[in-house]
């Protein structure tokens, strides 16, 4: 352990911003005082402890609940695929409702993780290091949940491979590159791939740490395989830093592009309420907002479940709250812009759609959404609110609800009352749709709970680097 720590010390003496100079400096400084050793090894211990111990009762309770939700979802999806989309509440006028709402919801949530791990990395925000791993994991799981929905919402999901432009003998038959749904295919796949690679690559040094700590056996073998023979040498670290930066660079534009493309699912359509160029920035802001909301929820839960208050501190929560304040305000501005533009351009159809949104059958959904997304974040101006963990928790739940409602409102209000009044219908979800939504939460939380049990949920090497770069020990205020 000491040797490893020394290795780690050697490396982490050089914070990332001076990586280049570190390579030039072949001289290795002496390890610092024992206090530093203790501080750094404590980080490792703290993070690795949950992986070795039996899970707590709280974890088991949460896991049982989410596994149950997942089972409900699996049953609902199986029933729907076997019987037909008719088991949902859709009809000849409303072709999408819960399915695409959930899709956009989960894709949006994923954006926070990528922003935290990639964009904040490029912006050299040190405070991200204790939360970026779980945020990135949240992205992966959110994208998995999201990707499920386009698949199951198809009438014939067994032919889903038709969306891929593979060589065939039917012409060859090409896909429709003008269709936003096809852009989604590429966007989501790209997002998933990059996020997965970035996340995994970020964990390699930590797998190495765990490998070295582990007793011989299955665990050690798995960690050895996962760490890809990491040896912690200079050369490895410098290449690793480059790779990380490149991946972060690749992941950064995804934060903007993926949800812009998802918003094009609506923006390129002809429907009043959908047909607007505002959607890409509006959706991206909303995505970051909802993502940070979900990250906040998860981190508040895990820091208390896993006793990681030292690492996920008030400072982190405060920073995330500020991001939510910003993006929430952007979302509020977008709502106002939509209504203003609808009034300004005088298009009767668009005016009618927005009027229906505010006063029609889904009016209470709409006003709840406004309360959660436009009004509630304004509370975050107060530092008292930002410092109170319970209030932040409640607020983050409200963000999730509000953002889900936003997508639902956008989709269903524009669909159920569009151009020809003869086709106006009411829409009501069925139990299967609700069960599928519950199932997606079940999938997400099951994956996340497994993650915090099986994988290092805080980036050990990054936190260590951060603690050294800050000069003094790793004593951070909880």
């Amino acid at each position, binding site marked *: 352990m000491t040797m490893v720590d020394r290795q780690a010390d050697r490396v982490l003496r050089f914070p990332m911003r001076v990586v280049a100079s570190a390579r030039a400096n072949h001289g290795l400084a002496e390890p610092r005082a024992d206090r530093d050793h203790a501080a750094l090894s404590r980080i490792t211990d703290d993070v690795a402890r949950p992986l070795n111990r039996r899970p707590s009762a709280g974890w088991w309770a949460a896991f049982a609940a989410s596994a149950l939700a997942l089972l409900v979802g699996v049953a609902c999806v199986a029933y729907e695929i076997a*019987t*037909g*989309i*008719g088991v949902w*509440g*859709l*009809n*000849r*006028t*409303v*072709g*999408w409702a819960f399915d695409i709402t959930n899709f956009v919801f989960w894709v949006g949530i994923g954006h926070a993780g990528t922003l935290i791990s990639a964009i904040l990395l490029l912006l050299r925000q040190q405070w991200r290091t204790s939360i970026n791993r779980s945020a990135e994991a949240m992205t992966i799981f959110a994208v998995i949940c999201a990707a499920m929905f*386009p698949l199951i*919402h*198809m*009438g*014939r*999901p067994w*032919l*889903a491979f*038709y*969306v891929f432009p593979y060589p065939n003998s039917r012409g060859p*038959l*090409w*896909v*429709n590159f*003008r*269709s*936003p*749904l*096809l852009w989604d*295919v590429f966007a989501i796949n790209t997002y998933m791939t990059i996020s997965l690679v970035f996340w995994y690559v970020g964990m390699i040094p930590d797998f190495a740490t765990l490998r070295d700590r582990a007793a011989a056996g299955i665990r050690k073998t798995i960690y050895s395989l996962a760490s890809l023979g990491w040896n912690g040498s200079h050369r490895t670290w410098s290449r690793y830093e480059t790779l990380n930066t490149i991946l972060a660079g690749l992941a950064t534009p995804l934060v903007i592009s993926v949800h812009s493309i998802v918003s094009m*699912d609506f923006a*390129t*359509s*002809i*429907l009043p309420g959908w047909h607007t160029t505002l959607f890409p920035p509006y959706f991206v802001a909303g995505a970051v907002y909802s993502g940070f909301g979900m990250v906040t929820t998860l981190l508040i839960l895990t820091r208390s479940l896993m006793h990681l208050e030292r690492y996920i501190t008030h400072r982190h929560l405060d920073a995330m709250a500020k991001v939510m304040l910003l993006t929430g305000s952007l979302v509020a501005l977008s709502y106002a812009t939509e209504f203003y533009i609808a009034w300004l351009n005088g298009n*009767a*159809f668009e005016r*009618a759609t927005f009027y229906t949104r505010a006063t029609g059958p889904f009016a209470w959904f709409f006003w709840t959404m406004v309360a959660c997304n436009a009004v509630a974040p304004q509370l975050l101006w107060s530092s008292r609110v930002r410092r109170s963990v319970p209030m932040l928790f409640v607020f983050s739940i409200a963000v999730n609800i509000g953002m889900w409602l936003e997508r639902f409102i956008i989709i269903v209000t524009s*669909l159920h*009352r*569009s*151009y*020809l*009044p*003869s*086709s*106006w*219908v*009411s829409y009501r979800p069925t139990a299967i749709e609700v069960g599928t939504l519950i199932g997606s939460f079940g999938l997400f939380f099951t994956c996340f709970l497994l993650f915090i049990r099986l994988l290092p949920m805080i980036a050990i090497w990054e936190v260590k680097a951060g603690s050294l770069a800050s000069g003094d020990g790793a004593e951070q205020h909880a």
Partner: protein
Amino acid sequence: MAVELKFWKSVEELRAPAIGGDAEARDCFAGQRARSGPPPAPSRRDFLTLAGFSIAAAAASACSRGAVQKAIPMVSQPEEMTPGVPNWYATTCGGCSTACTLLTKTRDGRPIKIEGNAESTVFGGGTCAVGQATVLSLYDEARLKGPLWHGQPAAWADIDAHVAQRLAGTAAAGKRVVLVSKTVVGPATRKLLADFAGRPGFEHIVYDPVSCAALRDATRASFGIDALPHYRIGDARVIVGIEADFLGTWLSPVEFTREYARRRRPEAAEGMSRHIQFESGVSLTGSNADVRVTIRPSQQATTALALLRRIARASGDTSLPEVDESSLDRRALDAAADSLWRARGESLLVTGTNDVDSQIVVHAANALLGNIGTTVDLDNVSLQKRGDDAAFARLVEDMSAGRVDTLILYGVNPVYDAPDADRFRAALSRVALTVSFADRVDETAAHADIVCPDHHFLEAWGDAEPIASQYSLAQPTIAPIFDTRAAQESLLTWLGRSPDFYSYLRDFWRGEIIPVQSRDTTFDELWDHSLHDGVFAGPVRVTTHKPLVGDWKASAGRVAREQAGGGRRELDTFELHIYEPVALRDGAHANNPWLQELPDPVSKITWGNYAAIAPADASRLGLATGDVVALDASGRRVELPVHVQPGQALRTVSVALGYGRTRSGHVGDGVGVNVFPLTRLEGGTRRYARTAITLTRTGRVTALATTQSHHSMEGRAIVKETSLGDFVERRDHGDEPDDPPTLWAERPKGGHNWGMAIDLSACTGCSACVTACQAENNVPVVGRDEVRRGREMHWIRIDRYYAGSENSPRTLVQPMMCQHCGNAPCEPVCPVLATVHSSDGLNQQVYNRCIGTRYCENNCPYKVRRFNWFEYARNDRFDFNQNNPLGLMVLNPDVTVRSRGVMEKCSLCVQRIQAGKLDAHREGRAVADGDIQTACAQACPAEAIVFGDLADPDSRVSQLRRAHRGYHVLDELGTRPNVTYLAKVRNA
């Protein structure tokens, strides 16, 4: 391929000369060769084809075998039948007693589509929705497979022996045999019935559940003619209807619609007609009127009398009795009478009431207007309804008293639809032998001793004379599917004659028809000619003026007295108006899923009847659509869900007949409520209205299965309408709007550009096109629950909007199907290119590519796309016609049956387009305008839908597109639809 093989079964056959004198007659490929020309000499390509095929066959047979399916079962192919090529047979519809002429399309020996017979000068090429749906009732699983005796299958011979013996014994013992039949329009059958019932002790009674007996009695009383007048709607410049749904269900709706629509176009040569309707419930006809005035059912007679008084006064006769007009709309009456008088000789007053005095009053009015001989034709009378309510009532009395020994029921179901059905059922038990010719064990046949199921009209020979001297023939289009027998043949057997109705029919025509014409000299010529054409027009008698005999003033007096003595109505009571709905009519077709799912043209409600009440009454009573109320009519009580109907007369409730069947089959049983028991006899005729009924809420709520829940256009210019004056003015001065600009390059054009023009002035909303499309394109039926969820599958729908006030709205209808947009919003958004644009202007839906993301449905502004939410075929959850082998026989083999998860929509009948192009190509010519007709265009009795090639500037559809009235729906979206609508012009 050039080698012809002759097979012989015996030496005799080999040696005997070929029968028919022509060796080719036995060559089974003769028919095919006749169509496609002699086969070319075998070429290298043929050899390779054969070689390839044989190798493939060898390979395939070496592989594991699939199930053997018999695709073409003919060993000896009949010469007129080629697989894949349809045969058309002219026949006559048996869906109701109107007897429209039809052409039936058969494929592989089975009828799959019904069309009108354009040869008919009376009915033209259109049909009604019921006519379109009758092809499905042929393939109804509820039909009896054979005769029943006391509920058990029996042999024909046994039954015949028993019945014949019984009948012989009855006549000898002086007992009575009564044959009750529906109106029989066929002269040969009528003669047979007369033969049958002409013997002592026998009697024939005609019973119509929806009766016009009063009109017949009135015509007899007023003019001495025992028939119904033939109303010539097309000759009328002004039509005033009093509770007469002549466009929907009354007398001859297809003919009337055709005539009516011709004169509703503002470009009509004879000038646009004017239509005023006085009615209580909103009927299809009333919704098309220029002026619609609400009256209560009890005011029908006084309305007629009020009009008669005004007309009489205008003609100088002021002797008519006074009538209290305080409860009537005097101004409307003045205006109507004035219009009628100004157009005298070319006007028409009709009423659908079944009260003799009212009909006499109307006859008098028409006579004073000089309409007899012009719009009221009493020379070529209508024979379409000959029911006698009083005779039927007497029959029930006789049956109850035990005076009837044998009862034969032909095409009637009195246990379901008689005015006092319980009494009739009880009386049945006092009849010693009851024989029913019903095609299924219906409510009456369930109590009959013997059921001898009649053929479906598509399986049977027959003839028809709906209008005097306008004959048509009916021929079988398929051999009888089950062991059924024509009712006529049963009667012939029991008469002791040869059970060959075909010969009887031919003999009748030889005896009665051939002498009255001079076109064909031999009978065989006449027969073949008529059978081919389907129609035969005898010499049309010149219409003459018939003097009004009979005491019409007495009738007027009686009407006046009745109104005066009507007594005070209680304030809290309603009047009940019972009507025949367009889809189910009198309930005979309740087991037809197409008709059950056909949205009512006015209310857009399917799968059940309802109590239509006025919005003001609804708000006063605190009722909303769906609330179940109990209607109490002197002891008889029914519970129905409320439908708030804009335009319904205040304090009236309208309820449709034809529902509430219990033995029609699993589709129709239990759907809706039977209101036939609420009708009653009064003054010898059956009345379909009641006064003093009470309405009470039950507290229950039902969700009505409606296909349209929003009725206002919300200020959007979707159906454009204008008044006649404005139209004429603007046509002369205005210019047409251009297409909105577009960023997109013009599409490369192919040879054709298929499009449509729909004339909203001609369209009445009858929905025949909806059923025709369903039949042609294998559109599935989804059932009540799915319709409630908004998932009906009709490719074409009739949108119906109300404009104006809620209590007297104008009704606007618009057939809406895929607009085949030039800039279709659905095309760019499909990820897999399942919807693309063809070079001839069609927006195509490629079923096998569709993965069902439904973005195209979302992006269609017209919402014309339909998604297959479930597997509708061969699925017990949707146990309609696509879930049994018999029902599957109605499918059109040229159209794919879509699987679950696939989007579908109107294809402009691409299979018909392809067939038309192929025919033209084979004949080496270009496709001519009018060669190809979509199913909806073909079925429309008003000829409101025109299909054609927009690339041809001289085609009718191109001319209509350029017409001043033409516009596109949602033009401003830049979709560039290929469907043009012609704005509705009202004669305000």
